């Protein structure tokens, strides 16, 4: 055949094919015509002969996947899962909680699609992998694109010998499972790592960050590279029990003091003229800060990083601190830094103090830190009525126990109805009154309302005169019903 091909490439004008070596050579010799026709005829014969004469090759099949004796997802639930994933449904969190609790496994024909979904879905990746179980792991072991989905303990060789992206992947995965072991590995090789890799490794410690990481972070403050030092500072600010935090507390005490006079307790700020080396090591920098001056920036850095407990010692409770008089020049900087500290240190007491003092003006990152029970009480007491449905209110719902209590559903529906009434009377679909501005609240309602809220929504739909709102209530009710169906399928 290669004989025919080389003649064909060269052209029969310059070369003649040898037919006798072909499997069909004898037949081919009976073909008449000019050399080109003979060649084409012979090739046709030879091709047919080859196509019909293909035989199997030999190969050893690999070891099969481990057995998974969990019960397979009911077919309807499996079908719905793919739809929910495609639609990025908010119901998935609840769905997975039930499916995992019941110990289901995914049907085999969906495992490959689920693995693809797990690759791009950060939120539900681990749940998907739990569902696909050993079959998914077996599949992932054969597809290099799915190596990030492998969850085996014996992959330390990746850390020792892998490429940088592989090592980073290992580190991030390991941080979410066993942060201490991961830090120990980083510590072991730290001094031999390349600078840009060290920066990435430090940043990876953000996952599963804890007091045990303080020593390594402290070490990183002396790094030659600025990005390594910056990442370390960012993480250290989240560890109020670290030596770093204590140094910041000492600076705070040196720069800020409480002046107690009868009837006139106030916070007095007394900034130094320059920074010493140790302050610069701790990441306090000269930055021009919104025309407020370099010293404002230093103060902000220090108060943000000092443990909030330092203020408890100096002033008293968090709410007392928020009430204290501060010179105009420093007031905003102090408040802003306290907000930052509350968020970084995830301090629930300070978060409550902010919420009760500032109401809807409370920084949105702070509100979810208020314990769920307290937030719920706050809402049910009517303190949040005026902003419950707006963007400001959304943070109040963060991580409330699921499903929400019926009273909360009642309160939200009542607020929706108020708006629907105003809407029907003005007939305008603008600004505050627009249904679409309440989209996220409606979404949360569909996801978190108890099933017992369905009749309330239907009743609201019947009372409402505005067509759009009628539909919004019915849709929410229908979606909650659908959620009920989805969860029933898992039984």
């Amino acid at each position: 055949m290669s004989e025919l091909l080389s003649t064909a490439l060269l052209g029969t004008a310059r070369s003649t094919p040898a037919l006798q070596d072909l499997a069909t050579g004898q037949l081919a010799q009976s073909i008449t015509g000019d050399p080109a026709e003979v060649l084409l005829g012979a090739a046709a014969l030879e091709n047919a002969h080859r196509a019909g004469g293909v035989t199997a090759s030999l190969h050893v099949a690999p070891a099969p996947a481990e057995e998974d004796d969990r019960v397979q997802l009911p077919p309807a639930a499996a079908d719905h899962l793919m739809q929910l994933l495609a639609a990025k449904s908010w119901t998935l969190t609840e769905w997975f909680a039930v499916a995992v609790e019941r110990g289901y496994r995914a049907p085999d024909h969906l495992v490959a699609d689920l693995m693809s979904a797990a690759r791009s879905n950060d939120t539900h990746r681990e749940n998907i992998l739990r569902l696909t179980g050993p079959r998914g792991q077996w599949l992932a072991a054969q597809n290099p694109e799915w190596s990030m989905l492998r969850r085996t303990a014996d992959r330390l060789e990746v850390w020792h010998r892998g490429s940088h992206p592989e090592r980073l992947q290992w580190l991030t995965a390991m941080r979410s499972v066993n942060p201490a072991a991961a830090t120990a590995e980083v510590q072991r090789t730290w001094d031999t790592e390349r600078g840009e890799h060290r920066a990435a490794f430090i940043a990876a410690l953000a996952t599963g960050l804890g007091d045990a990481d303080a020593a390594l972070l402290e070490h990183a403050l002396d790094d030659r590279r600025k990005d390594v030092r910056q990442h370390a500072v960012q993480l250290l600010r989240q560890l109020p029990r670290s030596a770093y935090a204590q140094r910041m507390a000492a600076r705070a005490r040196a720069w800020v003091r409480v002046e107690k006079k009868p009837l006139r307790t106030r916070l007095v700020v007394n900034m130094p003229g320059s920074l010493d080396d140790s302050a610069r090591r701790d990441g306090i920098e000269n930055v021009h800060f919104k025309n407020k001056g370099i010293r404002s920036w230093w103060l902000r850095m220090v108060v943000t990083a000092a443990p909030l407990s330092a203020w408890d010692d100096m002033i008293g409770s968090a709410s007392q601190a928020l009430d204290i008089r501060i010179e105009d020049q420093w007031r905003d900087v102090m408040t802003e830094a306290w907000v930052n500290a509350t968020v970084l240190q995830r301090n629930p007491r300070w978060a409550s103090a902010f919420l009760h003092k500032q109401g809807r003006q409370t920084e949105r990152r702070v509100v979810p830190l208020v314990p769920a029970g307290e937030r719920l009480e706050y809402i049910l007491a009517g303190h949040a009525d005026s902003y419950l449905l707006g963007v400001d209110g959304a943070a109040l719902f963060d991580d409330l126990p699921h499903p929400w209590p019926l009273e909360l559903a009642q309160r939200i529906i009542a607020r929706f109805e108020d708006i629907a009434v105003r809407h029907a009377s003005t007939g305008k679909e603008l600004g505050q009154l627009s249904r679409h501005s309440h989209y996220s609240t409606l979404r949360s309602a569909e996801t978190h309302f108890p099933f017992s809220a369905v009749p309330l929504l239907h009743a609201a739909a019947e009372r409402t005169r505005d067509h759009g709102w009628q539909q919004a209530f019915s849709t929410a009710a229908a979606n909650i019903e659908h959620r009920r169906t989805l969860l029933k399928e898992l039984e």
Partner: protein
Amino acid sequence: MTSPWSEGQVASVATDAGSLAAARTLSASWSDTGHTGTALWGLCQGSGRSPYRTVVDLDGPAFSCSCPSRKFPCKHALGLLLLWSQGQVPDAADFPPFAREWLGRRATRASEPGPPAPPSTAQGKSAERRADRVAAGLDELDLWLTDQIRSGLGSTDTSPAAFDAVAARMVDAQAPGVASALRRLAFTVALRPDWPARLLAEYAKLHLLVVAHRRLPELPEPLRATVRAHVGYPVSTDKVRGEPAVRDRWMVLGSQTTEEKRLFTRKVWLLGRDHGRWALLLDFAHGTPNFANAVPPLGSLVDADLHFYPGAAPLRAQWDAGHGAAEPFTTLPAGGIDPALDAFAHVIGADPWVRSWPVLLGGVTPTVTDEGWLLVDAEGRALPVTGDERNLWTLLGISGGHPVTVCGDWNSEALTPVSVFDRGVVHSLVSATAPSVSTRTAGRRR
């Protein structure tokens, strides 16, 4: 009155999971819904001022909606079906005007007889004219082919434009089968590292077709039909109907709908349970995938008569009549690698132009290696596998390293899986609406 579909049935007509999920969110948006006989309709309020008018003909099924969606069926049609499956569509005595118009058009089209056959003398004359034109065209093609070989494949023009020019001549010569074979060559040259060998093989096949066409009167009737089919002569429905009916219990082993330039093609793979014969149903629809003929779903078996298109290795067939309702099958008589290769050898012997032939391999384990995909039997004998990566991973996931039964198309180089049978269930390995091969390769070239 038809009883409402189950949710599963509704899901089975959806093109993707996303549109089904979208359809669910519509349940509160419907008004003026109704159901009569085999039709459903309703108005669905979207974001615009006037609601979308949605109609479903359950016979078929076929869908119509005034929304601009290119998905078919759109989320509104699916939403309407879901609503119906939940028993929320009331029975009605008559259709509203918007539904009547479309349903009426469908009914007329179905009952309309095909275009009347021209009187036989005129038909004979035009057939003669066509035969002359084809013969002249093929002679011209042969001159081109031999020229290519004479001057050498290494130095001839293998640009897409060159193949398109010859293909256009073949369209003029009323040999569309040859034209599309020529157009495919441009992709072969662009995409395959072994293109000179492929090109020689394809040129050889075309030359063989020309030679066979010249000797058409001498050929036995089945082979004559095969040659005519590959050249691209049309075969009338009546002629196919005239072929003796083949009755068997036909198992539906695969179904695929592809779209190219709004022409939808549905391919259904059938295997006769009693006689082990393969049949392929091909249906076409313009604009929307509303096919005139209904076929039983994947994984079901139906006792039916088929008429095969005439040829030396008949495969394509037309559905005639069923002798009873379709029922699911849960076992499958599957052969091994050797019988499948033997069968293919016989097919090639009868029809050397055939591109692929269906095979059913039992007890094979899908395997992925550094060199590619394989199906390995219990003795460790392997055949190469090709196809869409996503479907191949699904196949591997279903088997999990255990033997399964695979149905696919074998083309002497590799098997393209169509479906897999595992623990009594047939899973499709071709997407419901996949882009056809040529559009996909065209996309990659850009």
